[in-house]
């Protein structure tokens, strides 16, 4: 086991820079999730750790070794691929043993490790099967098994759950969590699914366009998003954002097309500034005198309702209990507390703590 350290890591293809200087330390035994929309550079970053992509500049350390110029095999990382990349002509056993055989481990040791991994992953009865005789979930577990038997310094996961159906994904997510608690191997996990990121991460890195927008615990990232991007990317449905300006006395917020939003508490420190105001769907409740929304549709999810509407030309989503069911087309008054408001600078898009 080892830590992974990124020091101003950059990647460019020709003149096109895709990773713009990431600096970060993944502590020994930590589970860190890289999350971001497709094309944000998260997979590239992971592949640079694995040694499948060259590092254009900066350094990556695994443990106390700089791995920039090491071959993938010398980096002591195991990787789980999105499509699992199982060797189709080998049995489950051979798939898991392949890396160990190359490393010239004793037969008995290979046997022990594979059987142990198979037990952990409930693959015991399947060792003689070929990958094509397995279900999607089983293949996924074999891919994990191939990583586990290596007993590597770090696990690298590249969207390992995106080929599974929704139910299996939730289940496997829990299994990965359990596995990590058991093995405590340093893990770097890439996903575009923010729910996966929130549930798995001890710390997460929200990436956008090759930059780390925020690094923090899921709780931290959710409750104190560092930028408008993080605010709208993390959370489902996303945070509602209004562009506008606070009044000179800091008591109201005037959105772009003139709609007035009454603030529960005055914000004199931010008076008269161009700002972005953010409110989570669950923090806006019917009743109260904050703002008025024209209701478009109501999504009934059972335990909760998502009310979609328009305020000041923005599409807004409000999350309420099942008791609220306003008619489409009606106006709904919404209230919120001062603590629920997130402020961002209109030009830098950075969080402002009022």
């Amino acid at each position: 086991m080892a830590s992974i350290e990124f020091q101003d890591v950059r990647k460019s293809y020709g003149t096109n820079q895709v990773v713009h200087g990431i600096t970060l330390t993944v502590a020994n035994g930590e589970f860190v999730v890289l999350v971001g929309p497709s094309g944000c550079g998260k997979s590239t970053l992971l592949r640079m750790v694995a040694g499948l992509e060259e590092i254009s500049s900066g350094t990556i350390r695994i443990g106390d070794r700089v791995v920039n110029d090491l071959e993938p095999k010398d980096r002591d990382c195991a990787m789980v691929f999105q499509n699992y990349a199982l060797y189709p002509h080998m049995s489950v056993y051979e798939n898991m043993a392949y890396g160990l055989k190359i490393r010239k481990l004793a037969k008995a040791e290979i046997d022990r490790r594979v059987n142990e991994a198979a037990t952990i992953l409930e693959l015991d009865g399947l060792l003689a099967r070929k990958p094509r005789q397995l279900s999607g979930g089983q293949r996924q577990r074999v891919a994990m098994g191939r990583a586990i038997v290596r007993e590597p310094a770090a696990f690298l996961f590249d969207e390992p759950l995106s080929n599974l159906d929704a139910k299996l994904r939730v289940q496997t997510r829990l299994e990965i969590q359990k596995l990590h608690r058991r093995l405590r191997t340093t893990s770097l996990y890439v996903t575009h699914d923010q729910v996966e990121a929130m549930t798995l991460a001890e710390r997460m890195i929200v990436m956008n366009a090759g930059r780390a927008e925020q690094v923090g615990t899921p709780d931290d990232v959710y409750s104190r998003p560092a930028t408008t991007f993080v605010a709208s990317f993390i959370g489902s449905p996303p945070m509602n954002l209004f562009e506008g300006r606070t009044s000179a006395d800091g008591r109201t917020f005037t959105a772009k097309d003139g709609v007035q939003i009454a603030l529960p508490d005055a914000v004199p420190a931010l008076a008269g500034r161009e700002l972005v105001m953010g409110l989570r769907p669950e923090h806006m409740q019917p009743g109260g005198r904050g703002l008025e929304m024209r209701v478009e549709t109501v999504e009934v999810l059972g335990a909760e309702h998502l009310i979609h509407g328009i305020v000041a030309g923005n599409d807004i989503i409000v999350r309420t209990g099942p008791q609220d069911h306003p008619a489409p087309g009606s106006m709904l008054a919404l209230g919120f507390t001062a603590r629920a408001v997130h402020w961002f600078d209109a030009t830098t898009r950075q969080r402002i703590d009022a």
Partner: protein
Amino acid sequence: MVEKRRWLDVLSYAVVIAGIVVIAFPVYLALIASTHTAEAVEAAPMSLIPGDLLIDNYRKVLFEGGDIGSRAPVGRMMLVSLTMAVGIAVGKIIISLLSAFAIVYFRFPLKHFFFWMIFITLMLPVEVRITPTYEVMSDLGLLNTFPGLIMPLIASATATFLFRQFFMTVPDELAEAARIDGAGPMRFFFTILVPLSVTNIAAMFVIQFIYGWNQYLWPLLITTSEDMYPIVIGIKRMIGGGDAANEWNLIMATAILAMIPPAIIVLLMQRWFIKGLVETEK
């Protein structure tokens, strides 16, 4: 078509049967001729019923050879043909696998140039480059040798291209997983890529074996001694020039013998590569 009309059925059967007769009748004729004496075959019309010299005729051609024209035993010819065909097929497969591997999995200067060079040679059949090739082989002292028979026919753009296409369908992650598992390029090639290509290798072997077995022009140039004649040349040499009466019974026996190995290869490998086709999944 799901039309049900009786006369249509009759018609399609008639066409199929006609087709079979056109192809099978000459083979049947050859088989019958190979069981008679030379005189009986010369007689018009030739009998369409098997004679009683089946074993005698085949034994004679296989171990003693004919008395007119070429006198080499056909057994030796078949051995030459077999060596040549297997050599060409195996050689082609090895060379093409390796060159396709290089083209798909490695980055090197002028890669595309080399690929297109290989591709362009698709347009150059053996016949076009046969004279310079002969010159080279003769300078190397390889006339009347197996290497001389086999080597010039080994380079194969078709097979390289086929394997290249196949390798491109193998997911990149497989190569990456192998790299992370610690496999070097050749280990990846032998333990993963080649086993995955088994189906294609089988198909290629069938095609190239038949190609090699049926070579005529090149062996005709490069072999001058009877013990290096492949069977295809042998048949031609058994037909004496001029007025000499030909031993058609023996020639036909040789022709039948020439047909057997390719047929066996097709039958054997067919089972193999259909099995492969069904089971392979990438």
